């Protein structure tokens, strides 16, 4: 019989499926695996990570990857110091900021025998993996999903960050105390932007004499000229005194650059969400000048002047040369919580780890503050800091300038003269 193309292809498929299977078999059944502990050998636990190393969130995903390594180093040193003979090993997969890939990643983690997965980043991705995780008892800890619709009790989804509802309140407070009365909320037309804008509107309307106008824009474009023009029209026609921008990094940079060339938009105040914080593009001269002119301020989940955060930021800078961006602290804490919960559970099993995670979080305090979960598995106590873009000798820089405390804002420095 001669080798037909069909049989050739089947052979190829066999190789393609078989090789990795064989490879993983050989690695996972080797002594260091998650199987039975061996005397004298450190027991190894694998923790799955599905991170946005490509796609829309790739610029923060790359930094997150470094945070993961930092957190695991710290965790491994720490558990050794406590006398545990275990190590935690990351299994990192890229999900391209896409929902279907996030699910496929979690499925392959499950099939590798991994019970704790950190990530995915976006709320839509968390939704995509929820059903599988619940059915297969995989603990999911997302460091950055903030959608209120995921606040569901008794599931396997945990989030080490507060829901957007809380930050929206903080931003509303910031805007109001800064004198904003009529605002246009210019936000991404996606899960994050819409939910944030809804809550902002709800809280801001509770203040006296306030008016809120809503203006969503299409996310994921490479230019926002007509969107910014529409915003300018809206600001002019409503007589708004402030713009609230709910955005990610790239879109915020684009929008602010166009707004800088617009006289109407340069004469109102700007308030931003946490998304754009840390993006290098925002430090260009155009946007820097614009920020000084409009006294631009933003909020972000942060416990200001938390020495643990400063230490974390210093270590990250020393080891990997990067500044922590948004959700780096919550990711760090997610890793720590996962590690300690596995140890507390005593066995590598989804249900046991879930129960242990709730307990561990009550007693853990990290760069992101106190990590205790509420009944929905979300961070119960979240503080919010205020950030600004300030001019320094090295050009424009991000700076945390204050914090939101209940109904008031406390400034620790004066960002704009």
């Amino acid at each position: 019989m001669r080798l037909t193309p069909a049989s050739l292809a089947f052979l190829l498929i066999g190789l393609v499926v078989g090789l990795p299977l064989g490879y993983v078999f050989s690695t996972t059944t080797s002594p260091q695996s998650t199987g039975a502990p061996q005397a004298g050998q450190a027991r190894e636990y694998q923790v799955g990570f599905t991170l946005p190393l490509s796609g829309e969130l790739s610029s923060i995903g790359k930094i997150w990857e470094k945070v993961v390594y930092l957190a695991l180093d710290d965790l491994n040193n720490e558990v050794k110091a406590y006398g545990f003979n275990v190590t935690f090993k990351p299994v990192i997969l890229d999900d391209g900021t896409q929902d279907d890939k996030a699910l496929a990643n979690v499925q392959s983690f499950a099939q590798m025998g991994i019970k704790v997965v950190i990530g995915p980043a976006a709320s839509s991705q968390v939704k995509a993996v929820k059903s599988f995780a619940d059915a297969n008892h995989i603990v999911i800890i997302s460091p950055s999903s903030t959608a209120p619709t995921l606040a569901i009790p008794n599931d396997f989804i945990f989030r080490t960050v507060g829901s957007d509802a809380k930050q929206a309140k903080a931003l509303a407070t910031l805007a109001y105390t800064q004198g904003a009365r009529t605002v246009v909320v210019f936000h991404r037309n996606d899960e994050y932007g819409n939910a944030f804008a809804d809550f902002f509107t709800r809280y801001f309307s509770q203040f006296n004499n306030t008016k809120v106008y809503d203006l969503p824009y299409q996310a994921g474009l490479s230019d926002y000229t007509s969107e910014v023009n529409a915003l300018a029209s809206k600001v002019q026609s409503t007589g708004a005194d402030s713009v609230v921008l709910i955005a990610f990094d790239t879109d915020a940079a684009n929008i602010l650059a166009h707004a800088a060339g617009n006289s109407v938009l340069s004469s109102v105040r700007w308030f931003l969400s946490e998304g754009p914080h840390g993006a290098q593009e925002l430090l260009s001269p155009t946007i820097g000048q614009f920020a000084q002119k409009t006294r631009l301020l933003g909020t972000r989940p942060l416990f200001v002047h938390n020495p643990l955060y400063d230490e974390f930021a210093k270590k990250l800078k020393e080891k990997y040369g990067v500044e922590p961006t948004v959700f780096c602290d919550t990711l760090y804490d997610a890793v720590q919580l996962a590690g300690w919960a596995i140890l507390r559970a005593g066995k590598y099993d989804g249900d046991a780890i879930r129960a242990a995670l709730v307990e561990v979080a009550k007693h853990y305090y990290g760069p992101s503050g106190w990590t205790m979960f509420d009944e929905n598995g979300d961070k119960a106590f979240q503080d919010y800091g205020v950030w600004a873009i300030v001019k320094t000798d090295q050009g424009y820089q991000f700076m945390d300038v204050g914090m939101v405390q209940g109904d008031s804002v406390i400034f620790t420095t004066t960002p704009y003269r």
Partner: protein
Amino acid sequence: MIDVLGFLITLTTYIGIYLVLSLTLTLEVSSGITNFGKVAFYGLGAYTGALIGTYLPLAITGSRASPFDVNGIQLLYTISKSNPVLDLSVFLLSLAAGFAVSALFGLLLTYPIHRVGSALVGFTLLSTGEVLRLFYLNTEPLGESKGFMGIPNPFAWLPQARGAEALYLIIVWCFVGLTYFIVSRIMNSPLGRILKGMRDDELVALYAGWPTPLIKSKVLALTSGLTGVAGVLWAYYFTSINPNMFTPSLTFNIWAMVILGGIDSIVGGVLGTVLLASVDYAARFVIPFIGTTLVTPDYLRWIIVGLVMLVVLLKKPEGLAPRRGGVSKL
């Protein structure tokens, strides 16, 4: 320990859904329809399924909860776990509706594109997909950017997750079988020859007495309907969908599979699909252990896919498994 059974179930489910897409694309390509808008029909099916799968159970049980609230979503989970009859019938209804809606949409789309050549057809379908995505993104009853969540898995009422997965796999593959039957019967018939003629020289087919635009619209309606069912299967497998799942890269992926196997051979399309989908899924078990992350594996994967497409087109245009013999099979 690696869970081999789970691995195989997941892999074959993905392959099954992709197979429906690539088989229908093979039929389209062999009829001269350069469908760069595969994702439009797929997404439409998924959305139709999700719409029925979430609104209908809530309406039948008399709940006023919205499928986008936490309450509604939890209620949907409860219903799907406790009411097998309702759960299954909603699923079956969705399959039928997904077919109907996508088929109708395919039929309507042939009007603007019936007079133009394949480049414009491809491009128009490509933009149709994008416009539909924007439509979902801006339509409140479709959940806007949130999309749907809590689409009931038709076998959620089974006690073990594994059983539900296996049963779903069987359903997917029954449908793959049906699609294979339809596509191969059509391609190996006098109609298949007419379609081939249409693809190579539509004017000659027209002069041969065949109302080519009408035939094209019927074929597109059929393949779109099948693609729509694939979308429904996807939505119920995933249990949550949102507009950003339906970007053009999905279409390009399917095209790569079909080109890899041989542009007008059924077996080739199947092989290309199985190969690419397997590599994609199995790679997850290798990549994390390689250790380097300087080059994102996904980028590398796309470069390889693109290169393979080019090499196949240049060196072996008939693909891995070319179609053998003539059309006429007596």
